[in-house]
């Protein structure tokens, strides 16, 4: 794990981030999607991986033997993250439902700490979108399908 101590004293600011504002404006919440498609699960499938990301960034709860845990090695302390989530959920993301507001707040906190910047995030999202929406893009030449591809 990288030494992240350079990041820990950074106090987050709560200025808006244009990419996150755009997602806030255009993104469809789980509440809307589940109602439209008749899905009963109250939380989006990505909630559990979001929780894991939060846990692992806090470091002190990550999947490691306790002897390997360095209490000072964390990227985003749980208490700082929760305080900032409270603040952002009451201000910039106040009209965003849960857990989308938790996700936007986490991304905001990470950008403000310099873990990645807005452009990197934008580019990564574009590549993921392409990956998810273009079924033929990966090289599957060495894969045997047990069903007929339509």
């Amino acid at each position: 794990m990288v030494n992240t101590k350079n990041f820990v004293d950074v106090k987050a600011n709560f200025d808006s981030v244009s990419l996150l504002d755009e997602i806030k404006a255009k993104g469809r919440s789980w509440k809307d999607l589940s109602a439209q498609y008749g899905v009963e699960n109250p939380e989006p499938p990505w909630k559990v991986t979001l929780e894991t990301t939060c846990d692992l960034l806090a470091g002190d709860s990550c999947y490691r033997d306790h002897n390997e845990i360095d209490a000072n090695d964390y990227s985003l302390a749980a208490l700082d993250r929760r305080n900032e989530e409270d603040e952002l959920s009451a201000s910039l993301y106040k009209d965003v439902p849960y857990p989308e507001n938790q996700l936007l707040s986490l991304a905001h906190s990470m950008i403000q700490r310099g873990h990645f910047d807005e452009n990197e995030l934008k580019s990564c999202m574009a590549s993921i979108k392409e990956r998810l929406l273009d079924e033929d893009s990966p090289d599957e030449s060495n894969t045997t399908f047990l069903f007929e591809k339509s």
Partner: protein
Amino acid sequence: MSDKDHGHSHKAAPMVEEVSDFEILEIAVRELAIEKGLFSAEDHRSWTEYIHTLGPLPAARLVAKAWLDEDYKKLCIEDGVEASKAVGVDWIEGMPTKFGTPSDYCNLRVLADTPKLKHVVVCTLCSCYPRPILGQSPEWYRTPNYRRRLVRWPRSVLSEFGLQLDDDVEVRVADSNQKTRYIVMPTRPEGTEGWTEDQLAEIVTRDCLIGVAVPKPGVTSNATRPVRKALKPVPHDH
């Protein structure tokens, strides 16, 4: 009948058939964190598998068992960590770290209600919650409104949750912290005489275990709870 039918219908459950920007954002945050070396993909996969196994059923079973067995009830009150083993939760060895975790610390206390004493749990600082035995916290538990108001006006907040307490019932609010987590053991309701452990466990809902509801025969799910914004948000540098 085709091979696909197997003699019974396979109607697929409805699913969301579009990818939202939020879903993409979650993946991007995770993948960038891995790319930057903040954690590994393997750690993420392993921890997710563990988190996936958590839910409120072990805590419900613990309470049901205690209602049927006085000795076990005594153990729950004296040593919640030891009592948890009987419902499949080992707060120490059962954790991926094999020694608890600092954020889900291995100190569980079971708060037993009586007809004249009602416990309710909060985390005023953030949203500490006994995840290994109760799963993920609900949204309202995380809100500053619940966290700040419950410690000031517990009876009012409980009444907003539909729980009206008589004046002669003492209310105790337990504030969770990094080292200690709590669950409430409510009193066994009337009308459950002769019930099995399975039947009893069904009415011990998550909200009963937090303390904002009490078990009732016939009620096996959590009601929709109010999620209110803080009226006067308090800046965190205060």
